[in-house]
C-alpha cells in the first residue's frame, strides 16, 4: 500500500519539480550571479564565490547608491503626489453623488487599458518643450500618471468600505465635517490608503519604460542603472541591482496582504 502511494507521488513529484525549476530557476540564476566572482564555461556553477561585487555596489561613492537614493526619492514624491489627488478624489467618488461617476472611474483606468509606451514617447516630447525632460519632476509626473490607477481605485474602495453611519453619528454629536473626516473617516480608511501607497511606491520603484524616455540619461534610477550594467555585460552588478529591486517588492507584497482586507477588495471597482 505504501509502495503504491509512493508510486502515485512519482508523476506528481516530477511535474511539481519541473514547475518549481521553471519558477525558481531564473531567480536562482540571479542569486548565483550576484555572489559569483568567476563563472566560466564549462563550469556548471560559479568557480569562485565572494562579496567583492557587493562591496563594489554598496561603496558609498558608487553610482548604485546614488541611483538607489534617486529611486527612493522619486518613489516617495510619486506617492505624495498620487495621494494628494487620490484621497480627495477617492472621497468624492465614494461619498459624493457625482454625475458621470462610472466615466470618471473609467478615465483613471484608461492608461492601464492601452499599451503605455506610445503614451510615454509623446509625454516625453511634450515635456521636452516645457524643459521637464531629464528632471526629477518630469519622472515623478510620469510615475504619478501610472500610479494613479491603483491609487484612485483602491482609495475609492477604502472610503466606500467605511460605514457612513459612523460619520453621521459623529456629525450628530456636534463634530464639524473636517473633524469627522480626520477623526473618523480617515483612520478607518487608512489601511486601504496605505496599501495603495505601497502599490504606487513599488510601481514607481520598478518603472522602466517611462523613466527611460523621460528621465534618461540625466536622471538615473535603479532600473535604468541595472539595464545599463546588464547591456555592458556586467552580470554581477546588474544581478545585485536586480536583487535590491526584488527584495522590497516581495517584502511589501507580504505586508499588503495584511492591509488589503476582503471588505475593501470586494469594493474595488464597485
Amino acid at each position, binding site marked *: 500500500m505504501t509502495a503504491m502511494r509512493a508510486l502515485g507521488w512519482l508523476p506528481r513529484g516530477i511535474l511539481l519539480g519541473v514547475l518549481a525549476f521553471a519558477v525558481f530557476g531564473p531567480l536562482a540564476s540571479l542569486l548565483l550571479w550576484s555572489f559569483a566572482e568567476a563563472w566560466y564555461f564549462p563550469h*556548471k556553477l560559479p568557480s569562485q564565490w565572494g562579496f567583492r561585487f557587493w562591496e563594489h555596489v554598496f561603496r558609498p561613492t558608487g553610482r548604485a547608491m546614488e541611483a538607489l537614493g534617486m529611486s527612493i526619492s522619486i518613489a516617495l514624491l510619486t506617492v505624495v503626489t498620487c495621494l494628494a489627488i487620490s484621497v480627495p478624489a477617492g472621497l468624492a467618488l465614494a461619498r459624493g453623488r457625482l454625475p458621470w461617476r462610472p466615466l470618471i472611474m473609467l478615465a483613471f483606468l484608461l492608461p492601464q*487599458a*492601452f499599451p503605455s509606451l506610445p503614451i510615454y514617447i*509623446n509625454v516625453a516630447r511634450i515635456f521636452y518643450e516645457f524643459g521637464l525632460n531629464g528632471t526629477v519632476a518630469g519622472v515623478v509626473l510620469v510615475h504619478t500618471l501610472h500610479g494613479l490607477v491603483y491609487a484612485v481605485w483602491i482609495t475609492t474602495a477604502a472610503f466606500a468600505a467605511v460605514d457612513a453611519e459612523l460619520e453621521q453619528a459623529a456629525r450628530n454629536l456636534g463634530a464639524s465635517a473636517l473633524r469627522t473626516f480626520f477623526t473618523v473617516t480617515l483612520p478607518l480608511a487608512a489601511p486601504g490608503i496605505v496599501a495603495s501607497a505601497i502599490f504606487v511606491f513599488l510601481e514607481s520603484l520598478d518603472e522602466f519604460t517611462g523613466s527611460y524616455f523621460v528621465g534618461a540619461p540625466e536622471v538615473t534610477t535603479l532600473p535604468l542603472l541595472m539595464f545599463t550594467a546588464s547591456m555592458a555585460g556586467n552580470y554581477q552588478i546588474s544581478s545585485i541591482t536586480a536583487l535590491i529591486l526584488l527584495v522590497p517588492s516581495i517584502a511589501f507584497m507580504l505586508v499588503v496582504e495584511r492591509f488589503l482586507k476582503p471588505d475593501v477588495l470586494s469594493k474595488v471597482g464597485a
Partner: protein
Amino acid sequence: MEGRLSIANFTKAFEFYDRDILFTFVIIGISTALIGLFSVAIGGYLVLGENRTAVAILAWFYRWPLFVPFIVEAQCMYMFLAKNGLMNNGFVALGLVDIETTQSLLDWRGIIITFVWKQTPFVALMVAGAMAALDRATIEVARNLGASRLRILVEIVVPQIRPTLIVGLILSFVTTLSVLSVPLMVSGGTPTMLTVDMAYRINAFGDYGVANALGLISYLMTGAVAWIYLRETMRERERT
C-alpha cells in the same frame, strides 16, 4: 512633411516594420494562448486536485513570479536562458542534453518564455479565485457519475469561468504589448517587437511620426482584442 496630413508615416511603418508587426502579433498571440492554458491547468489542479499536500505546495509557489518586476525578470531570464545559463547547465547535469549541443533561447522563444513566466500567475490567480467561487454541486454530481477530472475541468468548470479567463487574458495581452525591457534585454536580434522599434525610431532619429504610427498599430491590436471582449460580454448578456 511639416504641417500636412498624410499617410506617409504609415506607409513607411509598414514598409520598414511589416515583419515586426507580424512578429509582435504572433509572439503575443502564442504567449497569451500558453498563459491561458497554464493558468487553467494550475487553477484546475488547485480546485480539483485530490492530494492536499501537492495542492498546498503548488498554491505556495505558483504566484512567486507575480511579485517580480518585469525589469528584474528580464535580467533573470537573460542569464537563465543563455547558452551557458543555469537552464542548460541543469539539463546537462541531468544528462538530458549534450554539453556540445546546448543552444541559447535568447530569441523569440525567450520572449515567449519570459511573458508566460510573468503573466501566468496573474491570470491563474484570477481564474483560481473564480473557480473556487463556483457551486461545487455540479462538480460533485459529475464526479459521482464517473466523469474524469480533465473532463470536468473542460466541460463544466472552464465554461463557467470563461468571462474571468477572458478578462485576465486581455489584461495580460495589453500588458505584454507595452513591455519594452523584456524584448530589449532578452532578444537582441531581428525581427523584434514594436516597442523596441518605437524606442529605436525616437532614440536614433527623433522620428515621432513613424513611432506614433507604430504606436497606433499597437492600439489597433488592443482595439481588436477589446472588440472580441465586448462581443463576448454581449453574448453573455443575451444568454441570461
